[in-house]
C-alpha cells in the first residue's frame, strides 16, 4: 500500500516537472518560431547604420535600439538601487533584529511583496506629480523615477532571499569565525555573507527578471512610445516590455505584430546577458572573499 502511494507521488512529481519543462520549451520555441523571421539588424537600428547608433552619433527612429538601451539602463539602475538596501535589510533581519521586530518587519515586507505593480506605478506617478507641484516644474515622470519605483517593487525579493540565505547557514559555519575572535560584523563580512552569496544571487536574478519584465510601473512613471536613447536620468525613455505591449494592442498589420515577437526575443537575450553578468560578478566576489591573498 505504502509503495503504491509512494509511486503515485513520484509519478505526479515527475509529471509536474515535465509539464513545466514543456511549458518553458513551448513558450521559448513559439517566440523564436514567430519572431525569428523579423529579427534582423534593420529591426534594431532601422535606417541608421549600426555603428552610428551604437556610438550615439545618430538617433534611431524606426528601430528597437532606443528601447533596448532604455531597458538595459532601467534594469541596471533599479537593481543598483535595490541591492544595497535589500541586502542590508536582510542582514539586519537575520542577524540583528529581535523576534518581535522581525515579526513586524516580515509582515511589512510580505505586504510590500504582495502589492500589485500597477499600484506601485501609481505611487510613483503620484510622487512625480507631487514633486512637480512643490519642488520643480522640470520634474516629470522619468527614468530616475521609474528605476526607484521598480527598486521598491523588487526590494522584498532581495530582502527575503538575503535573510533566508543567512538564516539557513548551519551553526558550525556561524560559530567558526566567532570562536577565532571575530566580532559580529567581521563574522558577517568575512564568512556569513560570502557563504550566502549563492542564495542572495537567486534574489538578484529574480529582481533582474522582474525589472526587465514589468510594464505597469514604468507605464505610469516615464516610459513613452518614442523618445530615443535615454539622454538624461530626468527624461522619459523607451523600454522593450512597453513596446511589446503597445505593438500587441495597436498593431496595424501582421508584419508589425511579428516585430513584437522579435522584441520579446531581444528582451529575453538582454535578461540572459544580465543573468550571466550577475553570475560572473558573484563568482568574482566569492573568489575575492575567500581566495585572494
Amino acid at each position: 500500500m505504502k509503495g503504491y502511494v509512494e509511486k503515485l507521488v513520484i509519478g505526479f512529481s515527475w509529471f509536474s516537472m515535465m509539464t513545466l519543462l514543456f511549458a518553458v520549451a513551448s513558450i521559448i520555441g513559439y517566440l523564436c518560431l514567430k519572431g525569428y523571421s523579423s529579427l534582423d539588424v534593420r529591426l534594431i537600428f532601422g535606417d541608421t547604420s549600426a555603428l552610428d547608433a551604437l556610438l550615439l552619433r545618430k538617433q534611431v527612429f524606426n528601430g528597437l535600439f532606443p528601447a533596448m538601451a532604455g531597458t538595459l539602463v532601467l534594469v541596471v539602475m533599479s537593481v543598483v538601487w535595490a541591492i544595497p538596501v535589500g541586502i542590508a535589510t536582510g542582514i539586519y533581519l537575520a542577524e540583528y533584529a529581535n523576534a518581535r521586530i522581525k515579526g513586524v518587519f516580515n509582515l511589512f515586507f510580505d505586504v510590500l511583496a504582495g502589492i500589485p505593480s500597477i499600484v506601485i506605478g501609481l505611487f510613483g506617478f503620484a510622487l512625480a506629480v507631487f514633486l512637480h507641484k512643490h519642488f520643480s516644474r522640470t520634474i516629470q515622470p522619468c527614468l530616475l523615477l521609474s528605476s526607484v519605483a521598480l527598486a521598491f517593487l523588487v526590494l522584498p525579493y532581495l530582502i527575503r532571499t538575503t535573510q533566508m540565505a543567512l538564516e539557513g547557514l548551519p551553526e558550525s559555519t556561524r560559530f567558526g569565525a566567532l570562536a577565532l575572535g571575530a566580532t559580529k560584523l567581521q563574522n558577517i563580512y568575512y564568512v556569513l555573507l560570502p557563504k550566502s552569496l549563492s542564495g542572495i544571487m537567486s534574489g538578484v536574478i529574480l529582481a533582474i527578471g522582474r525589472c526587465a519584465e514589468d510594464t505597469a510601473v514604468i507605464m505610469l512613471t516615464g516610459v513613452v512610445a518614442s523618445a530615443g536613447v535615454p539622454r538624461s536620468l530626468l527624461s522619459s525613455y523607451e523600454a522593450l516590455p512597453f513596446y511589446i505591449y503597445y505593438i500587441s494592442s495597436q498593431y496595424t498589420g501582421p508584419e508589425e505584430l511579428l516585430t513584437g515577437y522579435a522584441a520579446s526575443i531581444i528582451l529575453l537575450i538582454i535578461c540572459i546577458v544580465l543573468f550571466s553578468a550577475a553570475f560572473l560578478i558573484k563568482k568574482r566576489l566569492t573568489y575575492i572573499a575567500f581566495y585572494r591573498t
Partner: protein
Amino acid sequence: MNTTQTGNIKIRVTNLTFSYKGRRILDGINENFEEFAVTAIIGPSGVGKSTFLMTLNRLWENIPEAQMSGKVEIRFNGGLRDIYERSFSSSRLRKLVGTVFQKPNPLPMSIFRNVAFPLKLSGEKDKGLIAQKVEGALRKAYLWDEVKDRLAQSALALSGGQQQRLCIARSLILEPEVLLLDEPTSSLDEKAAEVIEDLILHLKERITILAVSHYLDQVKRIADRVVQVDLWQVRK
C-alpha cells in the same frame, strides 16, 4: 569539590546555571580547572558538555533564547578575571580561549589563508610576521611537514584528520592560554585520532586544555583529570 588539586587554578566556575528555551541544562555548577593540565569532560549525550564549553568562550551568547547566570573566572596575567565583565569583549576573550569543534570547519580558502585568518581578524598586516606565525602554528599542530608544499591549495582538499589539525593550528596561531576541544576526534578514524591525542599531550605543556570526549580509553590516555557532567547535576 575536588580538594586534591595542587597546581594553579586557571578557570574557576561559580554557581553556573544555564538554560535554553526555558529548559535548565546546567544547574548551579561549581568547578575549578588546573593550569597546564588536560581535563576530560565526560557524560552521556545531551547533559550539556558542549554547552558547558560554550559558557567558557561566551559563544552561547549568539544562541537566541539561551540564558546563563553565575560566574566564570579565568586567570590571565596572574589574576583571575571575570570573563563576563562588561569591559572584557567576547572577541578578546576568544583570542585567549581557543575552541576546536567536533567537525573540522576550515573555511573554503587556501591552507595558508585559513591559518592566517585569525591574524587577519586582528588586523595584522605584516606579511613576514604572518608567514612566520602560520609556519609556527602548523608546526605546533604537527601539520607543517604534510602541507608545507601546498599552502596555496584549498584546505577542503585535506583529509579529515588533517583538517582537524588545521583547525587546531588556526586556534593556536593567536597563542591562546586555554584550548577547548569539543569531541575533537569523534569524526576521525583511529589513526588520525591518535595523532591528535599525541598533539594534545604535547600542547598541555603550554596550554590549559578542556576536552569533551565520548571515548573512555581516549580519556584514560590523555586526561590528567576527569569531570563527569551528569554527576554535577546530581550534586546540586
